[in-house]
């Protein structure tokens, strides 16, 4: 296999993703786990770029790193003590978690192996067209219009629910 710059960067991203994902589950300090999750999400965004999914890569960063991870950290910092945020891992949890992870891994491998579009894809160096326009067409002018609207209504309901729960008059 030709070892080129692209290979180098790809394996860099892959290593980054896997190593930091391992850190997320092994590290004892919950805040450290959250920050290594940031590196994992970045690595996954990098892999999306290699799969020619530019829009998805940016969405990954903006939604997961800029939104969800910030909320996780907010929750951790506001609820527990300062530097003593340690997690206990018992052996039973470890086994169960390992089994679930292994099952998920096997499932994903099967899916990857049986996806014809990936198997038959020959990279002749031509770049695929940008994905943004296609995604927009599919969501707003195509088969995914209904799911998109259903999801947006669901999110709206969640938003109103959150506002309702956090209101003072209701809580008192």
């Amino acid at each position, binding site marked *: *296999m*030709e070892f*080129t*710059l*692209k*290979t*180098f960067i*790809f394996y860099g991203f892959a290593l980054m993703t896997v190593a930091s994902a391992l850190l997320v589950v092994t590290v004892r*300090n919950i*805040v*450290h786990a959250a*920050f290594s999750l*940031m590196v994992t999400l970045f690595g996954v965004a990098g892999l999306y*770029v*290699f*799969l*020619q999914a*530019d*829009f998805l890569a*940016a*969405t990954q*960063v*903006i939604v997961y*790193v*800029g*939104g969800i*991870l*910030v909320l996780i*950290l*907010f929750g951790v*910092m*506001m609820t527990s003590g*300062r*530097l003593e945020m340690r997690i206990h891992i018992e052996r039973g949890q470890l086994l169960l978690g390992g089994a679930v992870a292994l099952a998920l891994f096997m499932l994903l491998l099967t899916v*990857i192996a049986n996806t014809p579009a*990936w*198997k038959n*894809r020959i*990279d*002749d*160096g*031509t*770049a*695929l*067209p*940008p*994905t*943004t326009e296609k995604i927009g067409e599919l969501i707003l002018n195509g088969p995914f219009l209904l799911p998109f609207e259903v999801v947006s209504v669901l999110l709206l309901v969640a938003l109103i629910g959150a506002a309702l729960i956090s209101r003072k008059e209701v809580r008192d």
Partner: protein
Amino acid sequence: MSDFRAMFSGFPDFNISEGFFPNINLQEKLNWAEEFIQNILIPRLPEGVAAHFPVELGTMLVMFACAGIFVAVVPLLPLVLVLAERKVAARFQNRTGPMRVGPWGTLQTLADGIKLIFKEDFIPPQGDKLLFLLAPYVIFACSFAVFAAIPFSQNILVSDFNIGIFYIMAISSVIVMGVIMAGWSSNSKWSLLGSLRSAAQIVSYEIPLGLSILTVVMLVESLSMTEIVASQSNGVFSWLIFRTPFTFIAFFIFFISAIAEVNRTPFDLPEAESEIVAGFHTEYSGMRFALFFIAEYANMFAVSAIAVTLFLGGWEGALPGFDILGGMPGFVIKTLGLVFLMMWLRWTLPRLRVDQLMNLCWKYFIPIAFFNILGTGIWGLIFPEDTLVSIIISCAIIYSGLIAAYAIAGRVMAQKPAPQPSSI
């Protein structure tokens, strides 16, 4: 080796001379570096060396060198801006500002920088050392990665991303992670309070910011920064700020939210000196503090540059056919104008309270921004193409709206202010 290759046959084939980052136009730059090595460097080398010259590695080194130049040049901006800020502040307060180092104090920032390098690099012993050391780099790297997508002129841009403005939003949303990192790892109340305030503020103001960017994207029908600039190439009235009345409102929402995003007065609650010392970077000293400082001023320049690109024509000139306010100089002048506006606001307005800050965002900016999106959509249906008529109508609406706003503001200010509730 062939088995190994077959194993990965499903993956894209990594060959540099073919497609590198597919949708991101980095390839031209890479090809440029590779051509430089192939055509210029190798013929000049002795034959024995040339035969084994690692072109791949060389290309990468050229890339790193370019990035290095970039990272070395951009901090010069803060060097100028910090001095400018102090001079502007002095002018506003009827002082002279720094006058001792160099003529009119022009070398003051350089002296301060040298001083900061030689200062003690203090790490709080009770804090989280690893995260404390990493945090400045996260903020610094994200602030600088934003510059990669900003077109300074037709040819001076690092990369013409297809998802340009979206990339900028994504990268700048990571800065808040660095802020939380710094605040938490310092093990100090001031730092933690500052970082929580900053995170709440940045996450809130990202929404009106993104929504007002969306109005522009709706009109241009592209996320690419170069295409956004290209759509404003017919002089000052084709700039997106004047294109519809809604983008005119969107510009102000964008700019005010951007000031909140970079934590400057009147939105500087995360670093409010009178309450929480210096916010999330209270415990930092020496060069690490300088990194925060450089990142802050680089951010200031970056958001102004984005505002210019999105609303004020980017590097396109003010008159079609004439090179007034065009090209790189025009772009920089426009951007520095907005930076000056930020400084002006900083030394004019007092700081907001927390409840005022959140009210402004959630009760005013977000509804107005949504109204803008609706309005832009309707405008796009009525005027699918930009014609003289649409621009005249738009400018007439903006003009009458400004006059109405002036009249209403005058009437409101003449009234006695209602007593403020002291909830916080």
